[in-house]
């Protein structure tokens, strides 16, 4: 069933990509992708396995607190709309490395930007791999590590042979399928409760071991600092995700970019409401049905919530089975799998492009790389990312995928976002400031992640309570470090380069607000 749906999904995607190539005339691609299409594509890029499997899983285990992820992610979108989308499209640049080096010194900024992108991509990839690995493990009964290797291998094949074709259409199809599937699932859950959310929540509080606490904040994130930190990461991380930023490149103009974010926000918001219902549906329908529970764990913990087969990430998948039977289970699994594949290919594309273009061509070869070598490097980079994703995916087996994505967002919010937003809006930003500040932000975020309880204790296996940093998400302090150090060092920077950087701002600012002007402040 699953294989059938996967083939069907791939076939539809293939058909869609063919559709784009049978255009009637030369050049008809001229107008770019429409705002509506791009909105769906952004939603497709964004509604990853993490959102779908992870959030419904978090709601399943923690109830109301799972929503903090949804809300945080949704709130990130206005940030993108007002601070980033239009400006990025007006500047006409592909990656945020290109934007940041509009007026700043190319080489150094590119190294940093590439590092920021790669670390973000790596964490994001881990989340997808874990999700996919769990899914395959559950469906085919394979060992987890085999499942992860299988998915990683598929991803590399998909990306190297033709996965990069018509990415927009792949994302659009995927978004539509996912929205449809989730709508159906949420509808079916509500149907069981006579379309009364109250009945649903009443039943959920009754069967959940935490009882009424699942309707109150604090069961997942008890510490207010943690909550703020997580919220910051989710809000500002979106604007620093390399594969999302690339999406503004495909539309015709700044207006279309802004519109497409508007549409995307609508789709994504709707989708998060669905995941919330799905999570509660899983509490009521999955945790109470022995077919979905692991008898051994149930014996030990007496809790249906903890005993779910395949871990909390699989709550939505079991729910599909519970409300729609085998057929719908196959459909939802296939959509989830295709989602993962598509997001992963988008990420791999972003990562490989930053390795081949920013690091290899601009830094290693000093801007004189032969394009054909660059193509080769980008292929090798894809393979490298695939292997890396597999290894990390195995290490991080038992993490909730939404939580992992939260870490990726924390890194994006601490390195990519400060650099991007300050280079667009703050005249006094200098190369040195961006470089050192960005590096400090990146380093503190990564160190914060590693020393946090979730990674230090759960993944790396140190004793409980031994984690040096008590915050699960480092964004609060790492973002502060990034912004403050960028500001401080830029202000203190008296080098000749700094003057050039500041002089370039006006041209860049006009360009970013209007789309008119030269494509580079340092045109020779």
């Amino acid at each position, binding site marked *: 069933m699953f294989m059938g749906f996967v083939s069907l999904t791939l076939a539809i995607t293939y058909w869609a990509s063919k559709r784009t190539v049978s255009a009637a005339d030369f050049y008809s691609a001229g107008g770019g992708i429409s705002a509506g299409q791009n909105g769906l594509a952004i939603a497709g890029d964004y509604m990853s396995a993490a959102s779908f499997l992870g959030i419904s899983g978090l709601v399943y285990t923690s109830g109301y607190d799972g929503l903090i992820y949804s809300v945080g992610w949704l709130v990130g979108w206005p940030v993108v709309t007002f601070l980033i989308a239009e400006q990025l499209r007006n500047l006409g640049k592909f990656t945020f490395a290109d934007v940041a080096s509009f007026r700043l010194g190319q080489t150094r900024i590119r190294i940093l930007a590439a590092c920021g992108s790669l670390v973000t991509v790596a964490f994001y990839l881990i989340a997808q791999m874990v999700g996919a690995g769990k899914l395959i493990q559950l469906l085919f009964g394979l060992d987890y590590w085999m499942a992860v290797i299988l998915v990683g291998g598929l991803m590399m094949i998909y990306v190297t042979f033709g996965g990069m074709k*018509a*990415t927009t259409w792949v994302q659009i199809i995927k978004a539509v399928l996912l929205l449809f599937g989730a709508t159906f699932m949420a509808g079916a859950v509500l149907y069981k409760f006579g379309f009364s959310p109250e009945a649903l929540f009443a039943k959920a509080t009754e069967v959940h071991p935490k009882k009424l606490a699942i309707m109150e904040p604090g069961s997942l994130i008890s510490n207010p600092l943690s909550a703020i930190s997580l919220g910051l990461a989710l809000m500002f991380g979106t604007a620093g995700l390399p594969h999302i930023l690339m999406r503004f490149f495909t539309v015709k103009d700044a207006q279309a970019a802004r519109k497409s974010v508007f549409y995307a926000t609508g789709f994504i918001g709707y989708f998060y409401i669905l995941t919330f219902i799905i999570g509660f549906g899983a509490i009521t329908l999955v945790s109470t049905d022995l077919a979905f529970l692991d008898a051994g764990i149930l014996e030990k913990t007496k809790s249906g919530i903890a005993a779910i087969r395949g871990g909390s990430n699989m709550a939505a998948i079991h729910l599909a089975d519970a409300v729609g039977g085998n057929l719908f289970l196959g459909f939802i699994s296939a959509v989830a799998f295709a989602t993962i594949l598509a997001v992963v290919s988008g990420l791999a594309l972003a990562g490989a*492009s930053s390795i081949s273009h920013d690091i290899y061509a601009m830094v290693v070869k000093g801007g004189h790389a*032969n394009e054909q070598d660059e193509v080769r490097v980008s292929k090798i980079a894809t393979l490298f990312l695939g292997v890396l994703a597999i290894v990390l995916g195995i290490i991080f087996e038992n993490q909730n995928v939404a939580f992992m994505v939260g870490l990726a967002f924390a890194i994006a919010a601490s390195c990519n976002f400060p650099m991007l937003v300050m280079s667009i809006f703050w005249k006094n930003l200098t190369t040195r400031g961006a470089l050192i500040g960005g590096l400090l932000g990146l380093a503190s975020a990564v160190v914060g992640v590693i020393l946090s309880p979730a990674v230090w204790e759960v993944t790396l296996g140190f004793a409980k309570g031994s984690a040096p940093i008590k915050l699960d998400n480092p964004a609060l302090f790492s973002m502060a470090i990034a912004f403050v150090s960028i500001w401080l060092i830029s202000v203190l920077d008296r080098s000749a380069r700094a003057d050039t950087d500041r002089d370039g701002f006006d041209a860049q600012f006009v360009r970013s607000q209007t789309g008119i002007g030269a494509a580079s402040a340092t045109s020779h």
Partner: protein
Amino acid sequence: MPKAFDAANPPFDRLTPHEAETLRAALDIVYFRPDEPVIDQGSPSQALFVVIKGTIEERDGTDLLALLGPKDSFDSRALLHGKSGHAFVARDEALCYSAPRHTVLDLIQNNPRFAAFFYGDIARKLDEFVRDQDEQRHGSVMRARISELFLHPAAFVDADDTVETAGRKMQEINSNALFVRDGHRTGIITGMNLSKAVVLRRQSIQASVRDLAHFDLVTLRPDDLVSSALVLMTKLNKRRIAIRDDERLVGILEDIDVLGFLAGSAQVIAGRIERAASQDDLAAAARQTAAQVRTLRRQGIDVELIGEIVSDLNQRLLSRLFDLVAPADIRTGGCLMVMGSEGRGEQTARTDQDNGLILSGAVEEVTLNAFRTAFSGALSNFGFPPCPGNVMVSNPAWSKPLSDYVADIRRWLTLPDDTAHLNVAILFDARCVAGNAALLTEAKTTLIEMARGEQAFLAHFARAIDLFTTPIGLFRNLITSGGNGDAIDLKKGGLFPIVHGVRSLALEHGLMETATDKRISRLRDMGVFHAEFARELHQALNFILMLRLDGQLAESAGATGTLVRPSSLSSMERDLLRDAFYVVKRFREFIRHHFNLGVF
């Protein structure tokens, strides 16, 4: 021992006569029933097969890749690598020569040129092909028939007619030679005979032509070979040959026309254009220019060279027409440009009007409109069909002052609408043919400056290469959509991706060249392409252009003139086309990567 085996069929034409004999001696004839497999997919073959009769299907699994007909040989891979890439199955009853494997391997070992067909990289194969064509050139010209040449009309005067009558007649039929009837003998008289008589021998113009004519006529028939005519002329020191069909004299063949046929008559036409005093004179020259393409091509001249010769003639023609038609202020203050394939100097059998005008300042509307209609109208009369996209001087959007173009360019780049990319492509390929070239240079410089560093614009621009797939599969197989009557679109599949991809790179790097091959060389010099890849790309382009031109000349290429049926190609050409498409595929990958087209 099949003597009928045709050793002139490629690649066997590369064998020495002795080697060909060895091969002949070893040949066998085999018969296949319908649907009988000749070589199974993935298995070795003990022989090289050459189809004598019937059709062999080349299949990959269930996909039909090609139909091999008489003289096609297969399968080098099964022979050399011991593993056939595809299956070969008889479609209907088929007869094939089979050449034993060891014999062919011996030949390959001893004859590098023969071997090159079986091994060898793409570029070398293409080179070999060009060299073969050079060798065939004289052959093909010499095999032409007299009927294909231009003949002066057969006009008669009587032997009793006067010098004056003969002179007037020559004037009247615009020919320099007449037949002279004298009883039952027939002679010939030329303008030179007449003038010598009158000027040198001071004869009266009333004298009869009997004593001036030559009655030792040399005659040939219309289906005799051109080479016979050349031999006779040289041997007998004659400048004219009478052409006789049965008993009737049908025309006079002059040596100048034979030479023109051999060498092309570009010089003659160029002279005619320069001397043209009216549009009628130009119309004649335009027709001759169009005929040149066929003449030059049948001599086996490389398409690139034909392109150069013919676009030079067209440029002279347009320039002369511009001088004749344009009023003084447009002539001095305007720049006439050609665009599209004409701008790139890319040869096609039929040239559309693709032209425009840049003015240095405003010109009075009435004058300008009169010029627009007159110029485009004259070109239509010359036989240049109007541009389907209306990119012509007659369209005000393409004949206006420089400042308007500059405003357009700004709009195209900052607020691109549906036609912006097309317009940028058109203007970027423009080449000045008459008037003030500095105007076009300035327009293009503006375009290049505006586009500098515009990643997003350039990517959207380059994206058009993704509109059509290149008809080549994962295993380098040509993809037709099945069945017998399928054709491959050379333009969509090969030409457009190369031309547009190279154009996008050229725009990004600010190149002023317009010809695709020159752009490729410049990009190579700038280090954008590896030298090897630049050569392959260039040769792929040339090969596809040549196939297109041949298709157009044979009028078999459908309405667009760019369709080619794989079954109409020789298997060697098919191989080269496969290789060319493979290069295109790699080039598209290159462009996709360079402009980040993966995100679209």
